[in-house]
């Protein structure tokens, strides 16, 4: 029982980060109908910015703020500078361009800063709090969970309760009609990219300190797991990303704990296959694939 509780707590904190990153993939999918394979590389660039700012100022919070700004700026640059010129008509052109972007960004980081892992510190105690003799969440885990939930709540409010959110949704689902009604669709698309990249950067910044440290490849596995989460939850569904993230986090933790770490990635793939067989659109797919 102790072991179960321990594994659940471990899985939940990582699951929250997966959920956040998956949410960023969902945001871009909803705005631009593209699975952004460059999301991890873009986020790691922003994390390098945060690392530099924290190193120079000594403040974690300035680093966190700069990661969000840098993420948004990278989202802007990628949409305006690259993706806008992707040939329309084939969904693959955007995907291929994104994969190319991954190589360019990761190589550039390697050339500029080297391949070594750089430790990142956090201003929280990482020692877990003991509950009934079982180590559960550390203060940092709690911080991650709170931030993840807060960001998701803020995005939900943005999309459902503000005029900007309405315009974002409108231009994603019906760009032609929105344009006729006076919505600046191309600006909305850019904002979608900026929001998404900022959220992804936040997720990367939260995860990297708990792993090996910052390196051009720090987000490779995060992207793979988060992509699975997004597909499991339904690429169209923010709540799907949240639930999917937590489920995948728990599955990885429990399988690693009870069956061994070699089986964990397989378990995630099995989950993916089962969901795709039973509900091809993802667990939370609202309706048959919208094409707009």
């Amino acid at each position, binding site marked *: 029982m102790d*072991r179960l509780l321990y594994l659940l707590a471990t899985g939940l904190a990582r699951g929250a980060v997966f959920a956040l990153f998956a949410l960023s993939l969902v945001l871009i999918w909803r705005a631009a109908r593209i699975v952004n394979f460059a999301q991890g590389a873009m986020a790691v660039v922003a994390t390098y910015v945060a690392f530099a700012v924290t190193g120079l100022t000594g403040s974690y919070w300035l680093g966190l703020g700069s990661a969000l700004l840098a993420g948004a700026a990278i989202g802007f640059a990628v949409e305006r500078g690259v993706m806008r010129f992707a040939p329309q008509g084939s969904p693959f052109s955007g995907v291929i361009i994104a994969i190319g972007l991954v190589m360019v960004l990761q*190589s550039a980081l390697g050339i500029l800063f080297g391949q070594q892992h750089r430790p990142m510190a956090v201003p929280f105690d990482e020692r*877990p709090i003991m509950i009934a003799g079982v180590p559960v969440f550390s203060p940092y885990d709690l911080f991650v969970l709170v931030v993840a939930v807060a960001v998701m709540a803020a995005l939900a409010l943005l999309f459902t309760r503000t005029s900007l959110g309405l315009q974002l949704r409108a231009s994603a689902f019906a760009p032609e009609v929105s344009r006729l009604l006076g919505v600046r669709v191309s600006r909305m698309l850019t904002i979608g990219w900026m929001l998404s990249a900022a959220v992804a950067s936040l997720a990367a910044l939260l995860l990297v300190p708990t792993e090996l440290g910052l390196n051009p490849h720090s987000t490779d596995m995060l992207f793979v797991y988060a992509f699975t989460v997004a597909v499991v939850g339904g690429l169209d569904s923010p709540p799907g990303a949240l639930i999917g993230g937590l489920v995948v986090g728990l599955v990885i*933790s429990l399988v690693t704990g009870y069956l061994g770490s070699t089986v964990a*990635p397989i378990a995630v793939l099995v989950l993916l296959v089962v969901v795709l067989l039973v509900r091809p659109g993802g667990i939370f797919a609202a309706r048959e694939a919208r094409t707009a």
Partner: protein
Amino acid sequence: MSQHRAPTTRAAAVVAASALLLTVSACSTPGVAADTPGVTDDTVTIGSHQPLTGPAAAGYSSISAATSAYFDYVNDNGGINGRSIEYLVKDDGYNPATTQTVVRELVQEDEVFAILNGLGTPTHTSVLDYLNQNGVPDLFVASGSTSWNQPEEYPMTFALNADYVVEGAALARYAADEHPDAVVCLLGQDDDFGAEFIEGAETVLGADGLAAVERYSVSNQDVTAQIGAMKAAGCEINLLATVNGFTALAVGTAAKLGWFPQWISSSSGGDYPTLVGFLGEDLAPQLLQGFTSTNYLPFGPDDEWSKLFREINDEYNAGAPFDGNTVYGMSVGYLFAEALAKAGESPTRESLLAAISSGELEGNGILPLAFGEDEHAAYTGVGITTVDQGVQDFIGVTYALEGESVEEVEAKPVPLAGDGIPKP
């Protein structure tokens, strides 16, 4: 238009190429067997496959840079038998499919004399048959797998690292000698590295001698579940068959749980300067106090080889961080230079292999090299090291494989001679 011109161009190219070929072969003939690839009157060209980019680059890309720096040093001092060593390093990104491509390029296009220090078990395994079928010397593979020591099946291939079985057995023996009543556990990578290390440890401790055996996968940078299980099992000594990053992750994760057991790590994951890079300058000396590992190469703050390598590193490697990889890379270079020096005035692939198998190579390790007609392993023993106050050094305990079992032996470090440039 271009189609019409093509035949002429092609003919011209063929003529030019044949002319070039004639010139080249004419130049290289005197003094050297004409059919030895990669050897001319004043150069010897060798190649390697290394992860220079991709996820594995973080841990290993500095090795070939150190080897190249050592060869530059040798070349600036007259080379070996008057020949300078050209070291072609190709990036395989630690992807076996790419390894196959780049090694074929090295052998067929660059016509290298030998492949040196190809890095990685999965990567190098993918070219093992190719190199042996084509008679290309495959020297000093950078991995502790036991696969490289199969003289019958792979006569071209020679190992360098003390293999994982030897390391596992030596460290388990040390744990049993030092702490006879302690609960010993093991965390290992879920591939050959972990499996062979576990095999070695169990030959010493018995099949049920390990209280808990946990495995990790490099695709998941979170070992909380494994460390939690080991803590719950009451482990006091943890043997590690981990790469450096995961050693740091294991030690760091345990520390977060307020758990500070004795760590005893394979040399593959026990390089103190590298671990400091992962854990940070402030935490590492505390977390790694008493951290035990192995080494078989010269090492330690006062060692004369280390001092020479440090100087070479500053002058020829732009002062890159000096760590275990630097010593390893330069030792590889030294060992190859020694083999080449002993392969004669006009080295051939046969004379190179004969020089290594002769048992006359000394290397620069703390134990004699094991190479011989029936032995393609370089080091069959290791010295124990520990970290004290942020300094990692040998503690004077050395174990070697004696027949089937691992016994304590006397270390016999090879003294530095001739400015670290081997003489024939």
